[in-house]
């Protein structure tokens, strides 16, 4: 997905001279095509992410539309206060890009994992949050974020994420996208864990259950119209994310649904509230976190959903 990010940015920066990239000394040759025609707008901020966030806000105040880019924990939690004050409070159109989010960098350990970032960004007024599931979602949503011209957190993956849509989806910022229509259970998912949501969907369908599957690429603002409607149609809602089960997308859904008169049960699946370490791959880490089809189904059975 990071390749798609660099490619789309390069294309857009050719026609929009206000686009500017600050990156914290990562990416190696990723941004070479951008540097070829916009070297001055491709700025290595050094390994100084807090300063990078404030500088981007300063650039935005002077008419640029900056991106800040590095591995997710360093562009969200390391510099959180700079994001809070300089970007969010001042409402500056900086797009904060977290690459390799969730457990993408599983083998690099908790320093490089991010499953608190949605919770952090969700708590900031003025902030928008978009988590594309694959390169195609990224390509469609990224121009919409630039047009939004507001503080934005763009939570992306690393590389070689499986393609999740068969046909080009009509994704609109702020609107949930229904991938499959169903009548008995609904799975709401966001970001790069979508292939697991799809595997869960297939497994449940194989059991004869009619399942609705939704890409909630925009976590903030949350598409509450869809939630209101879905609450009338289903008794159980499953949320799935590669983020701490507390504070992320599932919590956002839960917070909204809890205020409804006809509130279905919410079953949140994500990373349990402990650090994940001693792993060698993303698959390994997801297994340790209980993010497998088998575990989710067994929990749904325990909860009398199935």
């Amino acid at each position, binding site marked *: 997905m990071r390749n798609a990010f660099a490619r789309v940015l390069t294309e857009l920066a050719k026609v929009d001279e206000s686009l500017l990239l600050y990156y914290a000394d990562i990416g190696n040759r990723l941004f070479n095509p951008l540097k070829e025609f916009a070297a001055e707008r491709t700025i290595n901020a050094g390994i100084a992410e*807090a300063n990078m966030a404030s500088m981007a806000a*300063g650039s*935005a105040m*002077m008419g*640029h539309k*900056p991106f800040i880019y590095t591995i997710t924990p360093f562009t969200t939690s390391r510099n959180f*206060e700079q994001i809070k*004050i300089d970007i969010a*409070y*001042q409402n500056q159109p900086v797009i904060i890009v977290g690459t390799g989010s969730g457990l993408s960098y599983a083998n690099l350990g908790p320093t490089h994992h991010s499953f608190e970032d949605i919770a952090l960004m969700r708590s900031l007024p003025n902030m928008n949050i978009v988590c594309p599931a694959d390169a195609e979602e990224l390509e469609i949503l990224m121009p919409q974020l630039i047009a939004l011209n507001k503080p934005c957190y763009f939570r992306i993956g690393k590389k070689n994420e499986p393609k999740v849509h068969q046909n080009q989806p009509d994704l609109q910022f702020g609107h949930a996208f229904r991938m499959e229509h169903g009548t008995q259970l609904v799975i709401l998912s966001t970001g790069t864990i979508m292939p697991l949501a799809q595997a869960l969907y297939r497994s449940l369908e194989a059991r004869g259950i009619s399942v609705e599957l939704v890409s909630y690429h925009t976590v903030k603002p949350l598409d509450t119209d869809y939630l209101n409607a879905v609450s009338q149609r289903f008794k159980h809602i499953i949320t799935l994310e590669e983020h701490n089960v507390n504070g992320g997308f599932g919590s956002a859904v839960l917070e909204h649904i809890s205020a409804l008169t006809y509130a279905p049960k919410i079953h949140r699946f994500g990373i349990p509230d402990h650090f994940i370490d001693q792993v060698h791959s993303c698959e390994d880490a997801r297994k340790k976190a209980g993010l497998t089809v088998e575990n989710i189904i067994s929990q749904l059975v325990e909860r009398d959903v199935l």
Partner: protein
Amino acid sequence: MDITAISAKMRHTLCDVSSKTKTPHLGSCLSAIDILSVLYWKIMRIDPQQPNARDRDYFLLGKGHAASALYTTLAYRGFFDIDALYEHGQTNSRFEEHPGVNAPAGVEAVSGSLGHALSLATGMALSCKLQNMPNHFYVLMGDGELNEGTVWEAAMFAAGKQLDNLVAIVDFNKLQGTGESCQIMHLEPLEKKWAAFGWHTIRLDGHDTDALESALKEAKLISKPVCIVADTVKGKGISFMENDNNWHYRIPNSDEVIMAKKELGLQ
């Protein structure tokens, strides 16, 4: 105009506003007033009638707790009425104890959390250079603020990009919130530290307005970022406040405001 006379009047207003609105940080404001006077009357390209002019120079207050010093300077410079300063810190006031997004034109950025302004100004200065804009950026930081690591991140970056439209001024009054700055962290030799970070540095008496004016004029001719280390006195101008760190937080009563006014030669 007589910078010294303006500074004296502003110092009295600061005391009076602090006393009447019960807002603190007087000592921090008083050490910075001469720097602000020289910037706003002698150096910066600004027009109170067109506060958002695209070609203006920018002042960013790093030590946001000295907001009252900035508001007072802007009022005396004609951005708004001096009487408005008495709204300081009140409900729905534009003049919050730390400058917020609702601050009046002339206040260029929010402040209050230390160590943000130099980074912000660095991004602003870089973007202006990329767009061939003529603006200059002036950042005032406290010595306590230099404890923040982001200051040094920005210092390295700005020097790396040779941002010659950026000037940092350290209000080096030697006292931070709860103690002596040079004992809490190792600051000296401060101008050499900035020089080692790649900045052109000038050290001077931060209450010598002639020296300030000449240094700030010199700064415009230097082809890299400039740091002015200004030795100042916390509480400057009012003897019973000078170098007494209680005045970081203390608020003067009405008798003390009258005493201050006398000391400032205003009656």
